[in-house]
């Protein structure tokens, strides 16, 4: 069964990223954005019979059941998607697959997280105090018996900065890539964010010098090419082809999808230069019967600048080794010759947990629906959205279009 034209996204809602949220629970946050998405689609909750959510902090289990109860849904299909930053994109094709298989007709896809203010982490100069505050036995948590806790964490391979820096070093060894070329991605995306009132950095400008003068966190990556964690949420309503006419919004059709999941530890990735990124993208384009040159918007996962460059190349938007020159010679803004991450990307829009990855899908949907406001890409018919989880561990590519 091909997923091409089986279903379309007809409703979108977001809670704009912000640094912290107040006391709202994750469940209430997700419920709220779900209600907004159903309203956007003009679809009543009684018409929603599918539910996709991700693991939710504070809920140890029974997550879809709890969300269904809180939303008053009678789901005939409910599932957890656990693909890190690829979760949102992964939900879209799963919703279409469930619809195509007759398991449901209209599916909610929910992502997001709250974020509470914590005590600022100690800087290097406060090293002794930091070590005293975090005795060795507190990390990794005792219940974490994973191979990564055993063979990665003791070396400082904790969080994502180190992993993406390793990718950046390896890429720069294989090919030419300058710091300024990486910075160009962040700068053009910021110009997009300046046209998006929902972006967390909407009101702040950014230059290549700003990026290059920011602190080196993990060589070669600097502070301003690293995504900032935020709070927020995003929800989509995906519905069957024969229900699209009932929706209040124009459809953004799912035309092709691809997925690849290969490793957990970056040290065990099959090949740092030929990863699941390309596998997922090629599958998505092949299913849609189009190629990278046919799409008018690339909405590519950007936890770090280097991730955008790797994806441009592996997804086939440019040749191997040419990503640096490609971003340097193209205008990546919504008005440019290669519109990329027109919402600002997560780097400038904000990364609200799994809603960060979903933002690449919601932006592609809004652009295809013609609802992107002043940052609207003109005459857009096809968009490519890419999700990425872990340290390039989980990949999902989607081709979305205005016509079935």
């Amino acid at each position: 069964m091909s997923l091409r034209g089986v279903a379309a996204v007809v409703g979108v809602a977001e809670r704009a990223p912000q640094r912290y949220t107040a006391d709202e629970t994750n469940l209430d946050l997700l419920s709220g954005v779900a209600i907004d998405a159903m309203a956007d689609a003009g679809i009543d909750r009684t018409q929603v019979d599918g539910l996709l959510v991700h693991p939710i902090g504070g809920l140890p289990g029974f997550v879809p059941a709890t969300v269904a109860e809180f939303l008053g849904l009678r789901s005939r299909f409910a599932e957890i998607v656990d693909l890190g930053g690829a979760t949102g994109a992964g939900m879209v094709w799963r919703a279409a697959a469930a619809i195509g298989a007759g398991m449901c007709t209209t599916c909610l896809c929910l992502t997001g997280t709250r974020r509470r203010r914590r005590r600022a982490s100690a800087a290097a100069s406060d090293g002794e105090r930091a070590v005293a505050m975090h005795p060795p036995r507190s990390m990794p948590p005792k219940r974490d018996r994973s191979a990564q806790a055993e063979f990665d964490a003791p070396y400082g391979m904790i969080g994502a900065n180190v992993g993406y820096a390793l990718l950046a070093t390896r890429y720069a060894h294989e090919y030419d890539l300058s710091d300024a070329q990486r910075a160009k991605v962040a700068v053009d995306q910021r110009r997009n964010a300046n046209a998006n009132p929902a972006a967390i950095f909407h009101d702040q400008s950014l230059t290549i010098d700003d990026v290059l003068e920011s602190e080196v966190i993990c060589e070669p990556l600097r502070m301003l090419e690293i995504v900032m964690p935020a709070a927020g949420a995003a929800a989509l309503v995906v519905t069957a082809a024969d229900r699209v006419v009932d929706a209040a919004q124009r459809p953004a059709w799912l035309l092709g999808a691809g997925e690849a999941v290969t490793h957990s530890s970056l040290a065990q990735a099959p090949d740092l230069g030929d990863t699941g990124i390309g596998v997922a993208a090629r599958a998505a384009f092949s299913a849609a019967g189009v190629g990278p040159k046919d799409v008018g918007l690339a909405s590519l996962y950007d936890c770090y600048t280097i991730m955008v460059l790797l994806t441009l190349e592996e997804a086939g938007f440019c040749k191997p080794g040419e990503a640096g020159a490609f971003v340097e010679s193209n205008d990546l803004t919504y008005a440019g010759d290669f519109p990329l991450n027109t919402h600002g990307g997560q780097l400038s829009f904000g990364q609200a947990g799994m809603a960060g990855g979903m933002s690449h899908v919601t932006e592609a949907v809004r652009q295809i629906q013609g609802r992107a406001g002043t940052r609207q890409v003109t005459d857009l018919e096809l968009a490519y959205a890419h999700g990425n989880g872990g340290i390039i561990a989980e990949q999902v590519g989607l081709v979305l279009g205005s016509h079935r």
Partner: protein
Amino acid sequence: MSARPIPPVSALTEPYWDAARRGELTVQRCERCGQRPFPPRAHCPGCGASSLSWTPVSGRGTVHSYTVAYRAPHPIFALQLPLVVAIVELEEGLRMMTNIVGCDPEELEVGMAVDACFEPIDDTDMVLPVFTPIRGAD
């Protein structure tokens, strides 16, 4: 000695850490297909066999990639900055996450020849395999 997150050793991985205490790097090797899976596990990812035996490796390899962390990935590393985290590819073909020690960060290079060495973890009886450049290897 250095402060580290303490590896949660299991019965299956104990031989790896025991070997490290003796100053040896030992990994599993599949008796059926010859693959060397890492991290250690019960079943060979190449052929599914459960006959994985512990065999020493040379400890020599090359830096596949590296980064120099100037902000601690976790506060426990705050006194060890800059911290060099690397992926090393052993002569035998497997890759592991590690640190490069005894090397000026400026001298680091992808492809650099390195050799295993062993570093005790503070306040434990554990020893962590790390790597250091092989001098004069060029």
